[in-house]
């Protein structure tokens, strides 16, 4: 008798799941269809179209959302110019997970995409999947975080060790070469962040007056990162400088009141709109911006050149330079962010006068 329990429960469950799925389908389409390309997923045979799966590390990180905006804008522009429809399909996991990324690579490959643009959470985990995709004729490019042992044809991103060095060098300058320094390091398993930490340590070693108090890891959300900074400050009152090798705590406003610029100096990687008040108020005098929009923009253009024109970049590794953002070029940077599609740039920054030397934010040519 008990065996009858739940006989039809699964069937009802199925119906409700379908209903939930149908509701979710009422939201945005996952295909950034350009032009008349809305056929994707419903019988979109290849035809004259280039379909690119974009797999960033996590979909809750604003820097990757900017990269997505860049990719979609580039796809739209290329579609209009060339007559070949370029589609970007966003297959980024909700949170960082190398195994899930590998699964997404296989899924994209099985659904017949032409190319994959990926930032690798764990190169070791995705290398096999990338190689399988390349072996099956899919063009693969990495951005932000590379899989150097894989068969990808190009990588676009900053030199992470150099980024760590630059961050520490800026901090050392702010501290006049003397102080107790902490490094905020994000996810301890991310290879690119490990390289940045190593770069920061290497740079710190050049300054005899700089002492590294510790390297502090945390979950990569603004709240967790801010909480970690506050915790560490309470535990180590002797800290006079912070090197944030990622901008996580500055993606929220809590540290605007928690950090005292008279007591602590901060230099940080990343400069998205929400971080600009930190420069304005002098809490973080220097931000080293990754041109995150260009991850997507350059990625899509490079892939397009490869597939459409059979043109590869001169070097497989295409370096992205960090842009130094301070009070001097805050207005220029704000306008640059606005032009990249960021909608949350405070108008007061857009009204700031131009610096004498505009920030170097131009995208490298695909063939660079």
């Amino acid at each position, binding site marked *: 008798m008990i065996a*009858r329990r739940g006989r039809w429960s699964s069937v009802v469950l199925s119906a409700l799941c379908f209903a939930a799925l149908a509701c979710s389908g009422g*939201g945005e389409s996952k295909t950034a269809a350009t032009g008349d390309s809305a056929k994707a997923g419903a019988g979109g045979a290849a035809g004259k179209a280039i379909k690119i799966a974009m797999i960033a590390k996590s979909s809750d990180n604003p820097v990757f959302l900017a990269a997505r905006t860049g990719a979609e804008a580039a796809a739209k522009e290329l579609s209009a110019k060339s007559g070949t429809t370029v589609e970007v399909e966003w297959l980024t996991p909700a949170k960082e997970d190398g195994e899930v990324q590998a699964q997404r690579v296989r899924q994209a490959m099985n659904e017949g995409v032409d190319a994959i643009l990926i930032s690798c959470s764990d190169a070791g985990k995705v290398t096999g999947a990338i190689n399988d995709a390349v072996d099956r004729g899919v063009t693969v490019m990495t951005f932000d975080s590379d899989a150097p042992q894989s068969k990808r044809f190009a990588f676009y991103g900053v030199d992470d060790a150099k980024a760590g060095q630059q961050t520490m060098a800026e901090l050392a300058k702010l501290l006049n070469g003397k102080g107790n320094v902490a490094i905020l390091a994000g996810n301890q398993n991310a290879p690119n962040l490990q390289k940045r930490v190593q770069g920061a340590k290497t740079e710190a070693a050049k300054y005899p007056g700089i002492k590294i108090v510790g390297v502090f890891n945390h979950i990569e959300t603004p709240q967790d990162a801010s909480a970690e900074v506050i915790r560490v400050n309470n535990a180590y009152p002797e800290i006079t400088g912070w090197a944030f090798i990622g901008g996580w705590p500055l993606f929220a406003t809590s540290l605007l009141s928690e950090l005292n610029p008279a007591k602590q100096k901060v230099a940080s990687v990343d400069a998205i709109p929400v971080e600009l008040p930190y420069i304005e108020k002098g809490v973080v005098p220097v931000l080293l911006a990754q041109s995150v929009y260009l991850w997507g923009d350059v990625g899509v253009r490079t892939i397009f050149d490869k597939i459409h024109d059979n043109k590869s970049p001169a070097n497989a590794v295409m370096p992205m330079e960090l842009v130094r953002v301070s009070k001097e070029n805050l207005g220029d940077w704000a306008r640059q962010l606005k032009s990249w599609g960021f909608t949350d740039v405070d108008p007061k920054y857009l009204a700031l006068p131009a610096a004498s030397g505009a920030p170097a934010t131009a995208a490298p040519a695909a063939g660079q």
Partner: protein
Amino acid sequence: MAELTQERSAPRGPGFVRRLVASQETGLVIVVTLLTITLIALAGSHLDRRTGLEVNNFWNPNTLVQTLTDASFFAIMAIGATMVIISGGIDLSVGSIYALAGVTMALVLRAMGPMGPGATAVVGIVVCVGIGLLCGLINGILVVGLRVHPFIITLGSMWVLRGIAFVISKAESILVPPSLTDVAKAPLGLGGGLYPVPMLVMIVLTIIGAIYLTRTVMGRHIFAFGGNLEASRFAGLSLGLIQIGVFAVSGLTAGISAFLGASFYGSASSGDAQGYELYVIASAVVGGASLIGGKGSAVGAMLGALLIVLIRQSIRTLHFDQNYEWIVIGCAIIIAVVIDQWSTRMAARRLTKAAESARAAA
């Protein structure tokens, strides 16, 4: 104990057919089939580069094997976790056991240097299974020895084991020897980029798990333990050993899954399988396991894992907004449990009515 009837060997004839139709696994099979048909109908198609033929975006060998492979890592762990749940416990540490077993295997293999493919595979599986078994035994011994609820013990061990994995790996993602990947990705004659090994291991372990639960005395003791603790005590069962045993099996399956996962993906790190414990528990629950114990099956766990992965797959194949994935899976779990509880109450009411009718007739 009542569920013993559900798990008992199937009688032949119309009774068997009735039971088959009535079983929750059949319901899950229907759900999976419906979802599959829907996906085939709505998935669209693309041109296969290798063959030049138009293929369905879902109903093609690569996607099907990929879906089953994705499910296999959860499903294998879910088989072990289901035994813990049947016993009335819970194991939150399976994801951490997975990470620790994978990392330890990768470190051991790196320390041992180059070996033949056979030796590499043997060392790998022994280390992974050994670590998984050891962790499971420790969990079980702590639960029994300290008389603390499994939720607390495994919550603690979840952090401890992942912490150990982090410390010993120095947060590095450690590559495993390519020969190990060759084992996990052996085409077994299929070719065409099809890797059926994880899927086959899942099927074999499901069969073993089902036999263990339904055809062995130890398996039935687990149902007895979870279904009615007092009755089991009076029946003279070794309660401590049963409880240690289920945690050992849960650790063992996590170790096997870790071996397959690290080998298939080519590396192991302390961050692996973070949050997977929830998928594993969800698989067991959707598969019909009752969190109050006494109910569940290995086949149900596998089907539960497959259903969850299919829901994830369908969100992508049908190009729905993937940000809804967690909402859909969360709803599915809640609905499954609520319906199950409702049907349990209905069954109990029917039993009471039947008993009252019999008494009145007498």
